[in-house]
Structure formats: C-alpha cells, structure tokens
C-alpha cells in the first residue's frame, strides 16, 4: 500500500492563556489514505476541531502547535513557510466548517466568495471562473446555480449554505478535505443527503477526508476508519466496523453504549459516569482513568500508543475484548 496522504504524529497544540496552558491537543496521531474517510470522534473539548485547524495552519493565538509532525504528501507542514502554506490551503487541503450560517461572509455575494477562492490560486478569466463556480454549485445539488451565484448568503437556507461551502471546498479538487462537523447544524434529511454526496465524491475522485464529529452514529455509516479522541489524545484507531463491534478502549465502549439503537429499545441508555476533564487540568497518566471502570494503579502512568491488534492502535493498559481476539497477554496488567 502507498504511503498515507496525511500522517499526523504526536501532535500537540497548546493555548497559552492567562489562566494557564490549555493542552487542547496533547499527543494525537493518525493518518489518512487517498480514497479514504477517517472519522475523528470525540466529545466537545476533546481537541478534535483544534487538530483539524492545526493541519490547516489556522490555529488562532494564543494557540500554537508546539510539538509533533504533520506530513502531507511528503511535505512537512510545520516547516512550510506561510506563503506556501497559504498556497496549499483551499487548493490541496480544503475545509468545511460546522456552522453553515457563519461560514459565508454575510456582506459578499456568493459569486464573489467563490471566484476569489479560484483566483487566490490560479490565473483564470472572469467568465471561465464564473462558469466553473456555476458547475460546482450544480454538482452539490443547488437548483438554478446561475441565478444563485448573484445571491447573498442570507438568501439561502442552512442546508444550501453548507452545500455552497462544500462547493467552495471542492473548487480546486483538493487531495484532502477536513470536514469539521459539517452536518451537525442541519436537519436529519439534509444531513443524509449531504453525507451520501460527500461519500460519493471522496470515492469517485480518490480524495482523502477527515470527518470530525461527536456523533458516532453519523461517522459509523460514513468513515472507513475511526480515530477516537479523548482529552487531546487519540485513544484508539482502527477500521470502523471492528471498532464499533469490538471496541478496545473502555472510553470507546462507553461512547458506543451511549448511542441509542434499535436492538436496545426499552432498556436504559448507558452513559459514561463523570465529566470530561478540563484541558487546563488533566489527570496524570491516562486522562480517562477517573471515569473508567477498569482503572488500576498502573493507569497513573500514561499508556503508550501501541498496536493492540493488526491495524488497530490504542492507548490503554487494560484493553477490552483481547482475550476473544486471541491476544490475552496484552490485556494482563
């Protein structure tokens, strides 16, 4: 298999605030291949969005990427000069944001906002640029794209605005799309449509995609692989089906247990006890320790990221389901 398109190793992004250092991302590792959707799942505040912004080089001060390596198609993103990073953004790495109502500039027309995305990277005539934008709008399912080009964002619904944002992200046919909860703010029916279209695009165009979400049920139907984040760290990665069926990390198990499903109708939903820790004051060792039913004294030391099963990595001293998978020796304390 070819090298992954994007490799993130031990990324640390910290925010230096007055009250202390907020370790929003504190050792996240994952990789994405072409033609693959990687779902990054985690609760609010787990650092998943900041991880996405770190790749884009768009972390706002007082935040800063302090450590780790990010390699995109052989390019070291951290060592890249600003101007070259700008050249990658939007052209080879595109991003779609969470709230479609806030993504488009309210005082600029759609055509202005689309054409500037083109002319930021390539020389193109006005008429050609307009034609390309119109086609892009048509592709994401916006009716009468020619007329809609001259409209302002407030004349669109939320779902339509998100389609416009996706069309902008797709303008340069990027190699990687980072989607930060792009369907969270939408109706379920619109969400399903957009999910279907996005999946289609990724596979037909051999793009790679990072789908950042807190909604495990959305990502389960979409992603090829999943990375679960907790308190700034990726605690488990692996193929979607395997993770959903046999989670190795107790936190993943908790997440899956708290999703309502048909088979558990009528029974009480399980929830993870306690609250996610404040990134200002993370517990020593495994950050999930205070909420974990399997925690032992050993969890006071931070577990290393290791390959627990073929293709499945995790940070846990007491991974689950290993005995059944024929690796009981790894589960022992």
């Amino acid at each position: 298999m070819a090298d992954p398109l994007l490799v993130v190793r031990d990324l640390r992004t910290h925010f230096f605030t007055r009250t202390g250092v907020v370790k929003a991302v504190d050792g996240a590792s994952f990789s994405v291949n072409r033609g693959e959707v990687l779902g990054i799942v985690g609760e609010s505040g787990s650092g998943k969005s900041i991880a996405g912004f770190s790749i884009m080089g768009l972390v706002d001060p007082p935040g800063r990427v302090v450590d780790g390596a990010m390699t995109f198609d052989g390019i070291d993103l951290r060592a890249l000069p600003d101007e070259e990073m700008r050249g990658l953004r939007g052209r080879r790495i595109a991003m779609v944001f969470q709230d479609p109502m806030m993504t488009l500039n309210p005082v600029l027309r759609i055509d202005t906002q689309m054409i500037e995305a083109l002319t930021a990277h390539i020389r193109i005539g006005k008429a050609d640029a307009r034609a390309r934008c119109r086609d892009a709008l048509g592709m994401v399912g916006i009716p009468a794209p020619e007329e809609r080009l001259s409209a302002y964002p407030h004349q669109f619904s939320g779902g339509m605005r998100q389609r416009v944002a996706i069309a902008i992200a797709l303008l340069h046919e990027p190699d990687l799309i980072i989607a930060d909860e792009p369907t969270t703010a939408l109706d379920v029916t619109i969400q399903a449509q957009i999910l279907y279209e996005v999946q289609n695009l990724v596979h037909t165009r051999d793009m790679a995609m990072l789908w950042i979400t807190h909604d495990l049920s959305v990502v389960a139907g979409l992603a090829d692989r999943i990375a679960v984040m907790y308190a700034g760290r990726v605690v488990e990665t692996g193929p979607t089906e395997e993770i959903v069926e046999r989670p190795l990390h107790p936190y993943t198990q908790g997440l899956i247990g708290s999703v309502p499903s048909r088979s558990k109708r009528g029974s009480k939903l399980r929830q993870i006890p306690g609250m996610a820790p404040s990134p200002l004051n993370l517990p020593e060792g495994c950050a999930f320790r205070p909420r974990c039913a399997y925690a032992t004294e050993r969890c006071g030391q931070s577990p290393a990221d290791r390959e627990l099963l073929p293709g499945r990595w995790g940070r846990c001293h007491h991974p689950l389901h290993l005995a059944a998978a024929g690796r009981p020796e790894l589960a022992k304390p």
Partner: protein
Amino acid sequence: MTVFVIRRLLQSLLVMAVMSTLVFAGVFAIGNPIDILISPDATQAEYERAVRSLGLDLPLWEQYWRFLQNLADGELGISFVHHEPAIELILQRMPATLELAAVALLLSITVGIPLGLWAGLKPDSLAGRSIMVGSIFGFSLPNFWQGLMLIMIFAVMLDLMPAGGRGETAVFLGIESSIWTLDGLWHLALPAINLALFKTSLVIRLTRASVREVIGLDYVKFARAKGLSERRVVFVHVLKNIMIPVTTVIGLELGVMIAFAVVTETVFAWPGMGKLIIDSIFVLDRPVIVAYLTVIVVMFIIINLVVDILYSIFDPRVRLADVGA
C-alpha cells in the same frame, strides 16, 4: 426604496413641526431682545416703535402663527441685529463650517480607520497599544484645551501656522471654498485637526472593537481556509463588515460636528455658523437662532437618510422597504 424615502420625508416634516414649536417657545422664554437691541437712553416712543416693528408686541401664539406663515414662504425671519434675512446670514457662513467639518471628517476617517485596523489586528504589539493609549487622550482631553495647545505649539512657539481666521478662498467646480488655495488650506489645518481629534479617537476605538469582533468569526477563518491572501481577508472580508457600524457612527458624528463646531470656531476665530449662533445667542437675535436650529435639524435628517441608504449598500441584509424606520 422610493416608498422608504417618501415615508421618511413625511416623518421629517413632523419632526420639523415639533422642533420649531419647542424652539420658538424656548427662545421666547429666555429674555427680551429689545433691552439689548436699542440704546439705554432711547425714549419710550422709540422703544415702542422698535417693539412694534419687530412684532414683539403681539401675543406668543400670533408671533408663532406669523413665523409659520413666513416659513411656508421659505422665510425664516429677519435678523434683529443685521436686518438681513436670517437664512441668508446662515447660508453665507455655512460654507466655512461645512469645509471645516468635511476636512475634519476626512481626517478622522483616513487616520482613524487604518490605525483602528492596525490596533485590532495586532492588539498586543507596541504600536497597537500605543494607538489605544493615544486615542484615550484624544477624546478625554477637552476640545478647547486641545485647540489652545495647537495654537500655542504651532502658531506661537514654532510660528509655523496662523493662529486663527479663514484664509483666501477660490471658486472651483462652482463652490467657493478655502480648500482650493494653499493659504486657505494653511489656515484650515489647525482648526480641522482640532475638530478631528475627538472623532479620530472615536473611529479608532470603534474600528478596533469591530475588528476584534469580526476577526474571530467563522467566515474570516473560512476565508483564510480558502487560501486567500491576508490582504484580501483584511481589506475585503473584515473591512466590509466593520464598515457597517463605522458608517453609522461617522454619519451621526458628521451632524454633531457641523452643529457643534462652535468650540473650535470660537477658539480659532473661524467665521462659520457656530460663531454666528454664539454671537446671536448673546444678543438674543431670535430669528437667527430659530433659523440656525431649523437648518441643523434639516441637516441631521438628510444625514440620517444618507446613512440609511449607505447601510443598504454595505449590508445586503438590510432592505430599506422593509425597515419600519
């Protein structure tokens, strides 16, 4: 839009009616101008003739009725002191005030917006902090004191600029103004700076606050994520959004600047409307006071209308026909 303008004009008439009543009653209450106008050793007969010729012997309601009748003919009364139509006196002085206010406004925009942008984009830099500290001085030191200091430093100590008065005027594009001659500009500089200092500080602080607010919003981040240059992000995406609050305030402040250039005009002996109104108040020249206030109210109404129209240009979400103005 047409409907909006018509409705706005009708509302303006109402405002004018209310204003004229208040002003007329107010001016009537503050004293008898006859005592100031005629010499103390005038005879009783002379006194009464003066009273009758000015119409001051009539009851208040009748004076007001006459005033309204004159107003309908476009007359705002004859100055007690100058024996000229009040409106003409004001219109003679208006260009001087307008050019002063216009230049001051231009200064506060061209200096205030760039400095505010800088302070908003780099709030922690030395320049950013210095700008903010400077702006505190700009609007907390009294205007007249700033004017006196400008005269002290540039006219008295350095002997670079004239201490007061209006310079030569010339006619260009059909407008007679002192901004077309070097001497005129030379005289205009200090008063314009004095009048602009406060507004510049206001524009700086407003621009900075708006930039700080807009810069963290998703659409600015999205603009960056598209790979736009920093210049385009700031000068198109940020600037166009902050122009909405900045336009509102600048528009309102322009009216204030014209109406209350009084202090600056007095300090620099600038022959504008502000100086005229102060002189008229001293001698209780009622027609001039009323006419001045009428002109100012009309000006505010026009400025507000223009600001509303500018609004719809800067913010596409505003549709004037829908505004319940």
